[in-house]
């Protein structure tokens, strides 16, 4: 499968995450999201993660992005490497214009003020929002919002890009453009972890896939095989 000489970017070792949901202090209030998950992420690869809703995919990304800490096990990242989530519409403020929102999102993703200012025209052009870019986001349609969100998200520059269901944005025309931009990103030197519900996307974009269910890894390996197994389990 993965050649042993490839460099490991990130490794999860027996990672578990559980938290208290109910107010009680007894164990029945404890919710186990991830249960001893272990895998390695190699340099330059695109790893797909599939599974039903609520099985811990997003939580796994959050642990990799160091937003959450695992309650058990450990996560080992290659020193000096950064990982962050690529997310649409980073806290859009509806009363602010597209430009102001883009500025805020860019800065929240780590750009300095002058870098963010420099990105703005690029964002305006790619998102094709035209004059609406200066209008408050509350006047935007859902499609326009995701155009703005996707374009600003594309600015994230990190060593490990964690993508959570992003390619379902805007109208058909823009979706094509977005997919193309993402593919270019993934095909390059970028290491990517990609959560998706689209079999076609995982097959075409990912080098390897992991199927998780109920907080555990059920299968990993070649995307075609893993997806076939996953689909077969759903037919049962």
């Amino acid at each position, binding site marked *: 499968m993965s050649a042993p000489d490839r460099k490991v970017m990130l490794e999860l070792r027996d990672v578990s995450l559980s938290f208290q949901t109910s107010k009680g202090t007894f164990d029945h209030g404890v919710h186990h999201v991830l249960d001893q998950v272990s895998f390695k992420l190699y340099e330059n690869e695109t790893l797909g993660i599939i599974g039903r809703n609520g099985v811990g995919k997003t939580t796994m990304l959050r642990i990799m*992005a160091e937003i959450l*800490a695992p309650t058990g096990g450990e996560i080992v990242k290659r020193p000096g490497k950064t990982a962050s989530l690529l997310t649409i519409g980073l806290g859009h403020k509806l*009363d602010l214009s597209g430009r102001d929102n883009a500025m805020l999102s860019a800065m*929240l993703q780590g750009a300095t003020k002058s870098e963010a200012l420099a990105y703005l025209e690029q964002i305006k052009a790619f998102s094709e929002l035209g004059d609406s870019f200066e209008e408050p986001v509350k006047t935007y349609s859902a499609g326009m919002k995701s155009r703005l969100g996707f374009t600003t998200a594309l600015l994230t520059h990190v060593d490990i890009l964690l993508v959570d269901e992003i390619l379902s944005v805007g109208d058909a025309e823009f979706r094509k453009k977005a997919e193309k931009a993402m593919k270019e990103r993934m095909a390059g030197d970028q290491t990517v972890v990609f959560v998706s519900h689209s079999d076609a996307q995982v097959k075409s974009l990912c080098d390897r896939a992991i199927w998780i269910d109920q907080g555990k890894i059920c299968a990993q390996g070649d995307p075609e095989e893993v997806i076939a197994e996953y689909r077969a389990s759903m037919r049962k």
Partner: protein
Amino acid sequence: MTPRQYFSLIDVQARMLLKADASKFKLGILWWFLEPLMWVSVFFVVFNLILDSGKKSGDFILFLTCGKFAFIWFSKTVIQASGSIVASQGLVGKINMPKSLWPMAAIQESLYRQSSVYLLLFLILIMFGQYPGFAWLWMIPIFLVMYLMIVACGLVGSCLVCIVRDFQKLIPLGMTFLLFTSGIFWDVRDIGSPEKTELLLTMNPLAFMIDAHRQVLMNDTAPDTLHLMAIALGSGAIIVLSIKFMRNKSKYLALKVLT
């Protein structure tokens, strides 16, 4: 994240919050001034016209204005900052940021707003014949210590709300308690027993700060410098401790916000 990036992000967020807030209402930024003025009017009607049959002098308006303008800054900001991390739940789940960013942005927003509100306060004082003297320079340290106190309470409040959501109910209640115990519409120096006044000023730093505003602006008297320094030091210590806590427990706070 470098300190420079941190502060510029706080600054930009605060400006954006102000912009968003101003664009939401027809009267826009006029509300910055209208709201405290309306509060003063309400208090004047209740405590002078209704309860005291209008016997209090024009000074009472200045007395109320000093107290209420300072109090609103404290109470609104601390409430806003306390709820700020929880309110940014969406962002907390997506990016790994110092959690103090959100309360600090809320505090910064109100700092910008409050600077103009204090100008209005000075204008009102001058209109009522209280002309600025050298003693007014004391407002600089008083303003700074007020700010430190707000940062301290805002940071602690935001952690408490993250850990136990119920604090979001308790904090406004606490503010009402402070409204009654900090001498906004009555004078701490009129309680009758000097020991009680002393006790109140020691126990409730906000009462001391509000009294200091009046001493400086209305009586041209310097505040108790040692007391002021003690509050500054105390607030500073709380700020350092809460920033440390927020840094070490960043992921714990995120988990608490998200679940």
